């Protein structure tokens, strides 16, 4: 608390552990904003990250939504990519070799278009030694069939998580949607069903209109709102989830700088993901890692784990 405190000479520890996975720092990209890693490699050494999280993968390649798919809003953006991805086979063949060069753990985000596909994906990912953990997306608002019902109904969510759990021997992170009345019910449901960690939040469903043309600015009509605009909602939900489950929580939503990341860590997130900010500044993540280190130094903190969950509520 004292900004005049003597700056501690030792390098503060930034390593955190999530479901048995040791991360050298708590900063990783949010799925879908970092491609398969390669796209941002020109800007920094990917080994500077705590983990790499891939674009959401499905069993078969997926074409995604018609265009326009993105629209800028005040301090945020809407996207309706529609989970376009190369499919798990192409990923293994064409993207995995690149990722293999790095020591940073690779977390594969995935989803299914049916319960069977979720199970099959879990099996496929379990077989890949290069995959350190899997992040299950039950919450994408852009897929009409399948996904959306899992993400907003605790029973359906528990069902898909149990199924995936049965076929998955890696740490399983479940990513939740914020578009629910009570996120703690969802969090407890997926924890009971076997999630090793919870990631929240995905995007808030939103819409924007081109008032001159009087048409939706996204071909898909609605899309997912991300970026700094949603941060207060994300911090609130992460706080609530941390209070209601025992598994570690990964915080995501609107993080652009170390201060933003710290809000999540202080309310109890064990790690954070950075999404939209990568588009604003391709070096956002290494900047956040450096900022966390600075914060620890000025606050006289030896280890970032002291900061996690340190919120003072009077």
């Amino acid at each position: 608390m004292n900004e005049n405190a003597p700056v501690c000479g030792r390098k503060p520890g930034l390593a955190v552990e999530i479901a048995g996975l040791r991360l050298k720092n708590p900063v990783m990209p949010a799925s879908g904003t970092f491609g398969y890693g390669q796209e941002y490699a020109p800007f920094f050494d990917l080994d500077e990250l705590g983990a790499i999280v891939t674009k959401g993968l499905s069993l078969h390649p997926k074409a995604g939504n018609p265009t326009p798919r993105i629209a800028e809003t005040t301090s945020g953006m809407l996207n309706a990519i529609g989970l376009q991805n190369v499919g798990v086979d192409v990923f293994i063949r064409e993207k995995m070799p690149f990722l293999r060069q790095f020591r940073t753990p690779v977390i594969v985000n995935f989803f299914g278009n049916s319960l069977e596909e979720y199970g099959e994906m879990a099996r496929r990912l379990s077989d890949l030694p290069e995959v350190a953990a899997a992040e299950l997306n039950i919450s994408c608002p852009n897929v009409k069939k399948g996904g959306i019902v899992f993400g907003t109904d605790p029973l359906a969510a528990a069902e898909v998580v149990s199924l995936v759990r049965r076929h998955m021997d890696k740490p399983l992170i479940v990513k939740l949607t914020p578009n629910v009345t009570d996120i703690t019910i969802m969090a407890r449901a997926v924890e009971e069903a076997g999630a090793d960690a919870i990631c929240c939040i995905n995007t808030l469903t939103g819409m924007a209109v081109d008032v001159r043309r009087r048409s939706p600015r996204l071909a898909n009509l609605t899309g997912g709102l991300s970026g700094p605009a949603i941060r207060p909602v994300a911090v609130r939900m992460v706080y609530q989830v941390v209070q209601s489950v025992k598994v570690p929580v990964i915080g995501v939503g609107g993080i652009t700088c170390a201060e933003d990341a710290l809000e999540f860590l202080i309310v109890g997130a064990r790690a954070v993901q950075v999404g939209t900010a990568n588009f604003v500044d391709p070096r956002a993540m290494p900047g956040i890692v450096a900022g966390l280190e600075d914060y620890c130094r000025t606050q006289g903190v030896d280890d970032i784990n002291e900061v996690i969950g340190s919120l003072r509520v009077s």
Partner: protein
Amino acid sequence: MQNFHTSIISNLELSPGYFRMRILAPGFVATAKPGQFVMVRIGNGLEPLLRRPFGIFRTGFLPADCQGLPDKEYVEILYKVVGSGTALLRDLHRGDRVELLGPLGNGFDMQPAAEQILVGGGIGLVPLYMLARQLVKTGRVRLLMGGRCRDDILAVTEFERLGVATYVSTDDGSLGEEGLVTDVLRRKLEKFPGAAIYACGPMPMLRAVHDLCSAHRAPLQVSLEAFMACGVGACLGCVVKGAGHSEADPHYLCTCKEGPVFRSEQLEWDKLEAGHEDCGCEEERA
């Protein structure tokens, strides 16, 4: 490709609503290829949030005497003020800081044709200048430049200085020939079979150019625009429908990474969204 924290050298109004901005950009002279673009972060706050894509008009070195700056390579962009981001850009001055990501995307693939025809619609002229600079070395280059009125006709003398033959047309006849740039193109295609065509401009114009070129079997490359978030192929926000695209078997191409320049036959022309023109009126053109 790199992210530069750099600064503005100059920002001048070319014609009403159109500006030319020079930005310090180390390394660009050697690396930037005709047809590539940059993503500019305007301001260092979060308003606007996303970077804005602009074609590279040209790169160059500042005259040795003119600046005491450590690095003298610059990139030049031409832009039209259409919304909040470009309005903020207009208000920047020499010395103001900007962030620049680039050079991005694939550029033009220079054809070995003896007759090279460039077709520019309004601000769509931008990526053609560096291309012309290359093409004049090997062939005859013509620029067909169209716009709604004379304010939309930019930088033509700079093309002429390269030795490019220029043909200006405006919808209202306020400069050059009255009519559409595609009328001029039709005549040139008839006169020069075997010419290679390179076009950039509003989608309806590109569509008309495509139709003409297919009819004349002239090889065409077009530079497209799309809403972009990342500019590097990570977000999949900027895709266009590729040839053979169908609901059942969709085929999308990234404008930022696989484009912005495409060979005409790579695209599914009947399904390209009319999309991203800055002004509804332009749709009525071409």
